[in-house]
């Protein structure tokens, strides 16, 4: 009885597995909610570094402002939320 139970894992057809890396997820999130790369119609572009953008996001969401893609930030990015951008442009 001491032999561990063996789990059987199945490949489910049609299962959508998101293979997005943490970095891709972060970049997509920061752009989608207005924290980086705002392009004006005139062509004038305000480019914000990822670290700055992360810091802005962290401040807006009340997280520790580390400017790093840390666990708390990633967790926040994975949480369900409103689709209205935090920084409109």
């Amino acid at each position, binding site marked *: 009885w001491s032999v561990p139970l063996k*789990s*059987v*894992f*199945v490949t*489910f*057809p*049609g*299962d*959508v597995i998101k293979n997005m890396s943490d970095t891709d997820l972060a970049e997509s999130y920061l752009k989608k*909610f207005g924290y980086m790369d*705002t392009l*004006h*119609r*005139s062509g*004038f572009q*305000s480019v*914000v570094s990822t670290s*700055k953008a992360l810091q*802005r996001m962290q*401040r*807006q*969401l*009340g997280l520790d402002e580390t400017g790093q893609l840390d666990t708390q930030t990633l967790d*926040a990015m994975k*949480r*369900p*939320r*409103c*689709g*209205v*951008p*935090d*920084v*409109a*442009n």
Partner: protein
Amino acid sequence: YKTFYRNPKWDHNDVTYRILNYSPDLDSSVIDDAFARAFKVWSDVTPLTFTRLFDGTADIMISFGKKNHGDFSPFDGKHGTLAHAYGPGKGIQGDAHFDDDEFWTLGKGPVVKTSYGNAEGAMCHFPFVFGGKTYTTCTSEGRADKLPWCATTDDYDRDGKYGFCPSELLYTTGGNSDGAKCVFPFVFLGDEYNSCTTEGRSDGYRWCATTSNYDQDKKFGFCPNRDTTTIGGNAEGEPCHFPFVFLGKEYDSCTSEGRGDGKLWCGTTSSYDDDKKWGFCPDQGYSLFLVAAHEFGHALGLDHSNIREALMYPMYSYVEDFSLHEDDIEGIQYLYGGRTDPKPTVPQPNTPTTTDIPDPDETDSTDEPEPEPEPTNRPTTTTSSPLDPTKDACKVIKFDTITVIGGDLYFFKDGHYWRKSRKEDSALKSPMLISERWPALPAVIDSAFEDVVTKKLYFFSGTKFWVYTGKNVLGPRSIEKLGLPDSVQKVEGALQRGQNKVLLFSGENFWRLDVKTQKIDKGYPKYTDVVFGGVPIDAHEVFLYEGHTFFCRDRFYWRMNSRRQIHVMDAEDNEVESSSDAGPSGMEEP
């Protein structure tokens, strides 16, 4: 709290709304009620009233949709973004959209309203006992017609109270069949269907024909979601089939067997082993009431708050006993005022509170009733002696600060200052010594401004500031006294805003100072480039001159007019770039 750029708001208090369609996750009456309660959240603290329209154009048009739903802001499937809404205005403005790839509930799992039976439309009670067995979902056990049903108390055997669960075998919604039930099998484009399908539609909604031949009769309706309706997988929202067989074993409820991620799933036919049809089981879902209350906040003019406990915080979290946060109330009352009932239950907007009164310990003579301003030394009356006239201000790469005093432009650098008179033909005067005119000041001035009301001059250097009234000086005092955080090591720019407000810039942030109370206003700091779109975030001087706002960096300046159009100029006043789009919609007003 934050409002949208230029504070858009409804210009009338009797706001109308219209529900354009329904999610199959919830009974329409439950959705109607959730929206009505969500509006009441806001009408309870404002003079606003919300009236539902059943046709025509309402101020707030509410709809459910999936992925691309017609507004160029597609939803992203289950989870992620749940809904969005537009600020007040015409057309799409004011409208609220809900992602129907989410599972909409009241936040605590499926809400199953019964019909028919003997429970007068009561909600299912899960779990319930029937025939000594416990059920956590609707069941068709005990019925030859296979209609799903549930008990509306915890024990059917004892109470005998029951009703029928939403099912396409009972009724449809929408479509053109007045709620008639599905007819199986039915023919669509020559093929026969034995269950609801998404074929022929791009929006992912499941439908069925309500006669045996759609091709001939064109009669259809949308299938209500059962409480066991699956999500994802490969069964297009078919309900779980209990029991189902997986790897030779029979399951009566959802299981996580076979998966490494622990998610609950079920088969949608009697045997997964044979048919390989499956989907994820319904979860707690998202509270339509809470999400709607948030979105309606946007529809009324509120932007996202950074207070975690506020309703307008962008992240979803379920709370059992909801009440509006003070931050939400302050925000909505900033736009619409408080309730006009004889006995208001909430503080009225703009009512001075004790926190608005400056702390006596931190006041000085500048906080006392304003005396008649002493005549401030004007450049024309200065007694400072000119220095080396050959010193050329135009060769200075970067000034310590630039500001306007008495309408003239002043340039400060390393203990010296130059003055440019507002007269058209006036050239820069030779440099003067700061120490002669303002002896209390250090050589390097980071920022300065003249209070337009009292004509007092404020100078900032490092973490200190000085206030000159004519020849009288107060200071140095710590900028922390104004409410600036200790992380601010210097104030790099100052911008007048009306009579009593001045924006102070440092790094990528700015704060709004109430000159009268000598305190930073609530809600600051804000990001400079968020409010002044298109300017550099590392400007080392910011000032207002002849109606234009200037942001300087190195030998360039960004000049913004009142319409926030930007011209980028070099030191020789050649235009480098211009933007007619420097007033991005959605930006906030400082």
